[in-house]
Structure formats: structure tokens, C-alpha cells
């Protein structure tokens, strides 16, 4: 069956949803050297909902628009078209003081902990910034609350007096999480929070994130290019390619039997210890095309091994297959038969 999810998601507010994007697009105008201006379609008609207390993993190659999507959801940038909903409230047009109050409900953790902290301020002042801005706690009360926040991320209170460069990347990333927790958010967007850290440190943070979600019921939008990490943290996964969502669904279904050729290639590309799995690898040709002028029809067709005539002519719509929402002409039920999903499960 073909369902136009674009229409469905926009309807009835759902109590289980923290935030959602409805038909959101975002274009950037960029100056080209010597060639006037061009438009980058960073995000193209995206519908996405993050459920309360759950983790939505967002994957895709660099340049696919993942970070822009997170910033749209958090209303750090304004969409060119479409709606951003926080709970049931439309916050697409919110601004000024009103928006600043709404921001308490959604926070962001960045990839590089060092550049996300003011190098001149001590960690305590950055972690406690939200308390200063949003509460009228006195100095002592703020310090105490900052210590509690640091404790939540398993850092000692003495860290408040440290400068960012005096601590390790993993410790600072924990402090960044503490800073985000200060506003008691319902949604935390994590933009590649582990990619600058060593594996041992990654495991420590993954464990911490799981623990915090369990205790505080925060929803995560977890962005990563590391599919194994996404798999271990998320309940739902969305795959992005050149500004569009190409596949979305529960983590087991998506990792078990992805339907979109891009997802299949992406899953099979991650390095694996098992040679048996390696033999099934689909190596994509070339690189992701420029978002400034994406291929017509299906954006992925230039690297797709199943590309057909229709792929260049028409953009595919979303089809529901085996619990997954897939944007691919192969899934079109009017076609004779779709190729069986390749087994992308691991080991």
C-alpha cells in the first residue's frame, strides 16, 4: 500500500510525540566563487517525529543534511517551508523571548566538546548558564545545582572550577550533557557526540546516555555516521540522503532487512570483523552529489545499482513495507515484483 505520509504526519497531535517536523524544507543561499549565488536544498520536505522518552537515530553520509535537520527541529534555524511542532505547539514562527523560554525543552550536544565550551569561562559557568538565564536562584543555590548536574553525568563537583582545556574530551562531553540537562529538557539532539572520542570513552558515554534516558525520560535525536552506535542506542532509525528521508522505521526491522538500496549499501559498508558478512558488501561508486544541484527524480539513482528509467523522471513517494517507510520506486506495488531485501544483519 502507498500512503502519503506527508499528509498523515500533519494530522492529529500525538501525546507520545515530543517534537515533529511537518513537511519541512530548508534552503540556504550560498555565494559561489565567480558564479553569482546558488541555492543549497539542505533539507527537502521532511516529516519526522521524535517520541517521548525514545531515541530516534539519524544516519547518512556527510552532506546529507543531518545537522541541519537537528537544528530545524530545535528551531535554531527557521525552515523555508513547513512546520516545526513542539508537543502540540507550532513553534515555526516563535521568536524572541517566547522562543527563548521554549528552548528550555530542547537542547543540543555538539560533536567537538572543546569548541562547544567557552575557552575562557570555567566549566561551572557554562553548565550553570541556563540556571542564570531561566531561574532566579542565588549564587550558592546555582553552584549546588551545578554540582548536582555534574554528579548526574558522573563528574565530581570540583569540575565546575576547571577550564575546558584542562579536562579530557570524554569528560568535557559529559559536562556538555550536564549543561544540556540544566534546563530539564524533553528532547536532546546529539549531533555526532561520540565521533571525536576513543572507543572506551564512547562506551562510557553511551552507558551514561542510556542511564539518563531511563531516569529522566528524555527523548534523543541521535545523529551519527557510526551505524553500530546508532543501532545500540536507538529505537527508531531514519536514513537521510541529500536532504530527503529515504527510509525510516524500528531499529530491528531497519538493521534486519533494510529495503532502500542506499540503506543496504550504508549498512553493508560499516567495517565488520566477520568475513562472511564482508562478502555481501555493496561498495557504492563515487561520492554523494552536491546538494546544490541534486540528480532529478530519486536523488540516489546516480549511485544505485537498481536504477531504472522512472528513477530519473519521478521522485519516489514513501511506501510502507514490512514496518518500514521506504522512499524507492522498487517498492512501488504497481511494479511486478520487488527484489528481496538483502540480508544486512550482522554476524
Amino acid at each position, binding site marked *: 500500500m502507498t500512503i502519503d505520509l506527508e499528509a498523515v504526519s500533519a494530522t492529529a497531535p500525538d501525546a507520545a510525540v515530543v517534537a515533529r517536523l511537518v513537511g519541512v524544507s530548508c534552503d540556504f543561499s550560498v555565494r559561489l566563487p565567480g558564479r553569482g549565488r546558488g541555492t543549497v536544498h539542505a533539507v527537502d520536505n521532511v516529516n519526522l517525529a521524535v517520541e517521548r522518552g525514545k531515541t530516534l537515530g539519524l544516519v547518512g553520509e556527510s552532506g546529507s543534511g543531518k545537522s541541519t535537520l537537528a537544528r530545524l527541529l530545535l528551531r535554531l534555524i527557521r525552515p523555508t517551508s513547513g512546520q516545526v511542532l513542539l508537543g502540540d505547539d507550532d513553534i515555526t514562527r516563535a521568536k524572541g523571548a517566547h522562543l*527563548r523560554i521554549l528552548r528550555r525543552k530542547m537542547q543540543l550536544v555538539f560533536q567537538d566538546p572543546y569548541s562547544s565550551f567557552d575557552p575562557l569561562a570555567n566549566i561551572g559557568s557554562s553548565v550553570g548558564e541556563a540556571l542564570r538565564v531561566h531561574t532566579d536562584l542565588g549564587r550558592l543555590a546555582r553552584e549546588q545545582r551545578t554540582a548536582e548536574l555534574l554528579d548526574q553525568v558522573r563528574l565530581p563537583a570540583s569540575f565546575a572550577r576547571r577550564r575546558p582545556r584542562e579536562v579530557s574530551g570524554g569528560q568535557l562531553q559529559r559536562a556538555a550533557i550536564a549543561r544540556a540537562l540544566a534546563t530539564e529538557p524533553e528532547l536532546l539532539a546529539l549531533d555526532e557526540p561520540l565521533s571525536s572520542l576513543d572507543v572506551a570513552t564512547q562506551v562510557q558515554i553511551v552507558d551514561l546516555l542510556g542511564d539518563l534516558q531511563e531516569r529522566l525520560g528524555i527523548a534523543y535525536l541521535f545523529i551519527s555516521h557510526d551505524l553500530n552506535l546508532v543501532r545500540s542506542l536507538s529505537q527508531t532509525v531514519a536514513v537521510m540522503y541529500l536532504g530527503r528521508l529515504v527510509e525510516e522505521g524500528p531499529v530491528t526491522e531497519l538493521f534486519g532487512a533494510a529495503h532502500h538500496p542506499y540503506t543496504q549499501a550504508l549498512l553493508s559498508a560499516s567495517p565488520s570483523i566477520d568475513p562472511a558478512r564482508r562478502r555481501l558488501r555493496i561498495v557504492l561508486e563515487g561520492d554523494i552529489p552536491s546538494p546544490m544541484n541534486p540528480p532529478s527524480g530519486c536523488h540516489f539513482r546516480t549511485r544505485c545499482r537498481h536504477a531504472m528509467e522512472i528513477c530519473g523522471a519521478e521522485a519516489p513517494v514513501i511506501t510502507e513495507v514490512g514496518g518500514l517507510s521506504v522512499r524507492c520506486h522498487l517498492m512501488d506495488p504497481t511494479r511486478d515484483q520487488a527484489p528481496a531485501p538483502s540480508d544486512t544483519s550482522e*554476524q
Partner: protein
Amino acid sequence: MTVATGDVGLLEGERRSLRGWWAEHQRLRRFLGHGGVLLSFAWVLLMIVFALFAPLIAPHDPNAQNLAETNAGISAGHWIGADDLGRDVFSRLIYGAQSSMQVTFETVGLALVLALLIGLVAGFRGGWLDFLLMRGADAGLAFPPLVLALAVVAVLGTSVNDTSFALAIVFTPGFARFIRGQTLAIREESFVEASTSIGTPPTRIVLVRILPNVMTGLVVGIAIALGSAVLAESGLAFLGLGPPPPAASWGDMLQEAYNTSLFTHPWSLVPAGLTIALTVLAFNTIGDSLRDTLSGATPRSRRQRGVKRQRGITAVVRPAQPIPAPAAQAEPDEPERGGAGPALLEVRDLSVEFQTDTGRVRVVDGVSFDVGEGKIVGLVGESGSGKTVSSLAVLRLLSSPPAQIVGGSIRFNGRDLLDIEFDEMRRIRGRDIAMVFQDPLASLDPSFTIGYQLIEAIRLHENVTRAAARDRAAKLLEGVHIPDPSQRLSAYPHQLSGGMRQRVMIAMALSCHPRLLIADEPTTALDVTVQAQIVELLCELREKEDLAVLFVTHDLALISELSDEIIVMYAGQVVEHSPTAELFGRPRHPYTAALLAASPGIRTEADSPVLIAGQVPQAGQFPSGCRFHPRCAYAEDACRTAAIDLTIAGPDRQSRCRRVEELTLAGVGSEVAIRLGADPVGAP
């Protein structure tokens, strides 16, 4: 899941903070140690004291004329003589400091306030306001500064405050542009976005987050501007636009001396002239030194004492040459190699030290490994393990100072690379041993086409014509699967994607058919899809060219796809050395096992991911005994005291663990290990 207590991390943190304080202290000392900074400070301070307490300090009334002492020389009454009206020059210099210092500090202070207002608003707000303010600043900069100042003074008057105001107007546009530029850059930093995301109001972001960061960039400019302001004030006074007579001013004194006694008493020009020059010099010296200190440059005189300086090649300071041990090969450091001849690359007991502010630190400690012909060897470890330093040391690419190789040998093709000179090393680099780095953009010159760079690389080592080199370059690009190779030759590095650039780097590395390729995290900056392409390429090249590869990485799953052997490093030492399949099947060191369990792409026999508490210790702070013991789940008391040697732990395997015989560590299971190519008999 085992939960980390973080105790080790805590201790680590405490130590780091102490070191942070020391670093600050070192920085201060470095700053003051800069040539003449203390003198400069003393001079400026003296001028300020003169200005503040002139009436108390000056021996005479600066305006008291005594025609009997016209142009008097140096005497007890007039320390540096008297001028043409018989006024005491020393006293006039002291009083001159009043107007000079007042104008200087007022000017710079006022200009700073105005410029901060303009620059911060323009930079943070942007849009039409930015446009208007900056075009205004441009207009201000378009006038010659002194002419502008003259015009303003002519309109306003010549009192001290008027002069300050006029000069401030001259100084503001330059400052404002600089502050706007800094603001623009800082506004894009993640920490500003973090504040926005918290809901901090923009004014607070500007004042609390942006302003202090702008100011650190500005201090140098302020010091230099103070010098310029001294000069400008004197210049205006010299032209007669200083404080009205009889008030003393340096410029005015210079002018009077020039008018009345240039030929009769040329000496009379010196006191005021020298004072102005020294004051300007003092401010500039302070500015220069601030710049050096802030940018981290070390003053020449104090640079890394005790390390041999060498250009283009890592210095080697070995204790007496180790006697080539003949039959004593049974020592465990020597990897066994079933009676074969010497390997292509043999690294033995390599130790590297770095000179730091706090002393010498051993970063690589007694590392030994071999890379055989056509073999791919993985060098694995977390950041700070010494894996990159070890790989750079092979080509002696670490700069001295601060690095120096303090022991061991690196035999390539039978020659010790630690014995040779720069010229010979240069011939080996690229021709026999090539290197590929993590960030291809940083390794390619942005101002030349990749064709030019490839052709240069070929012609550097081989005597071929440009046309022949060009053909070879195109073939090389084809060899690394770059589409339209002959067209791509005229592309600049920025026109290629990250994956393409890394292919170009590999093509360049292969241009002279090296026998060994050292690849340092070559795919870390790339997407998985592109990483898979590069891995496929490397495997293909090994087949075709019989290329040996030393592959440095932190990614165990990745290296499992490529390597024949794996060396695991921790805290500057090799902790495990093993054929790939056996390492994954049954690790023989707790650190390897923990890394395996922690790697998200690897599923081990362990029930759940193991949390390794704490983090890799910093070089110079390695714990006693086994360096892994504070984080090891199997550590015993004995592990904490005595250093552990690398011991044989099976065929072709070594482990640096006391308990290697008693521990059975979780691997990926024998089934996968056999698929990886483990010997079924040898597999546990």
C-alpha cells in the same frame, strides 16, 4: 553492564588541573622572559609615575625660566641640562609625560569603547546595520590618519581632552573592523550556538561569551595602538596642536629644540626625541611579546634546552650503539619468524621522547615490530597510546625539537634508518617508504593542481620528462579509480571530495612504487561508504603491487578486514602482538579484550559491553607496574609494582601481561576466527 566508578578519571583530572596551573605559570614566565619585556614594563611604569606625580618628582618648576642658564649643560642642578629659555629639561620631560600618557590612554580607551560598540553590534547583528557601520569605518580609514586628526583638532581645539578625542576618532575604524571580524568568527563557534540553544538573551551572549574572547585577540592590538598614540600625540604637539604653551609636552619640546637650537645645540633634540622613541619601543615590545605568548611561540633563547636541533629529520640521541647481538635472539622482544630472512621493516626497542615545559617525557617506550614484504600490519590503540608517534618515527618525520629518538633501531631493507643523514632520508621518503595521513586536505598544497603535485613527486625521485611524468600521473589516478583521470589532473584539491583527495594522496604515495606504505588513520575523516572504497583499493594494491602497509588506526573492526598482524599499543608500549585472526579469536591481553568488547561493531563472547574505567594516562604520568593496571579488571597487587615485560603467548604471539597464562579472555568466538583465517588447530 559494569559501571565505571571514574576514580581514575578523577585523579587524572586533578593532575591535569595542576598541570594547567603550571602551564599558565610557564606562560607568564615565558612572556616576561621575552627580550626586554621587563625593561619595557619598567619604562612604561616610570612614565606613568612621572605623569601622576610630576609635581612631587620634578626638581624644578617646568616653566621657570632662567635666562642665565640658557642651554646650560648637564650639572647637579640640571640633570640633563636646560633649554633655550633656561628651563630644566628633566622637569619638562616629567611634566611632558602628563599630557603624553593622558592622551595615550584616553585615546586608546575611548577608541576601544567606541570600536567595541560598533564592532560587536555590526558583527553580531549583521545585515544592513553591519553594512552601514562598516562603510562608515571604511570612510574613516580612507583618510590619512594624521590629516584626519589635524582636521578634528582644528575644529575642536587643542586641549588635552580634545586631542584625545581627535585621535580616538582616528583609531576607532581600524579597531572596529578588527573587532567585527573577531565577532563574526566567534559568533560561528559552537559555544555561542550552545548559549543560544539554552535560551540566553543575545545581549548576554555578546557581553559574557563574545566580548571576553574578542578581548584576548585584541590585547596585542591595544599595546601596539598605545605606541602609535604616543607617536601621534607627539606629532600633533610638534605641529603646534598639542596642549597650549607654556604646558610642557614632548612633541612641543622637540619642536622648540628644532626651531631654536638645531644647529647651535643639536644635543637639545635628544632628550625629548629619545623619550618618545623609547616609550613607543616599550609599547611595541610588550605588544610583540604578548603576541608570541598568546600564539604559543617560544622565545628563541629558552627553546627546548637539551634537545638537538635538526632540520627536516628527527634527531637521534642513542646511548652507545647497541652491540648487534648474534645468537642471543631468543629474547622475547624478537618476534619469531619461522626462520625467514630479515623483514622489510624491523623496528627494535624504539623509544621516543618529547621535550615539554615540564621536562622530558617518554612517549614511545621500547616498541618492536616487523613489517614483512607485502604484509599489512595494523598498529592499533587509543589516542595517546603512541601509535602515531611510532609510525612517524619510522620516517623520522617528528620535528626536533621537541621530539628525539632516544633508543632502538629501525632497519629498513637491512639499513638502520637512525644512522642516516637528512639527504639520504629524503631520498627514501616517497621512493621506498611513502606515507598517507588522516587529513588529505592538509597534506595537499591548495595553490597547485593535483596534476602539478603528482608530477613534481614523480620527478623529484626519478629522472623523467614532464610529459612522461604526466602520463604516469594520469595512470596513477586511474589506478586508484578516479574517473576521468587526465581531466582531474588540472583540478585543485578543494575541487575534489574528501574520498577523492584521499585517493589522490594514495596515488601520490604510490607514484614511485614504494615497498612500504605507512597509512595513519587514512579513512577516519571519511564516510563509511567511502571508507569501504578505500579499503577495497588498499587490498587490491597489496595484491597487484606486493605493497607492504603499516596501517595505524583506532578501529579494530576496520583493521580486521585488512591486516595480517596486529600490534596493540597502550601508554607508549606494545601490549599485544598477534596474527589478526588469533587476536580476535582469543585476545591475550585484558586491554585488547576490553577494546574488542567496547568496539560497537564487534560482538564478543562477553555478555555485555565492558566499560573501561578512566582514560589513557598522559605521557609522563604513566602508572608504575603494568601501565594498564588502574583500568584493568584483572589487576592484582603484583601488577601494580613491577614493570611487565612482553612475553611469548603462543605461536607468533606476544603479550605484556603477568597473568597471560591464567586468564581466558573473551574474543569473537572461534567460528568467526576461523572464518577470519585462524589456524583451526591453533585456535582455542
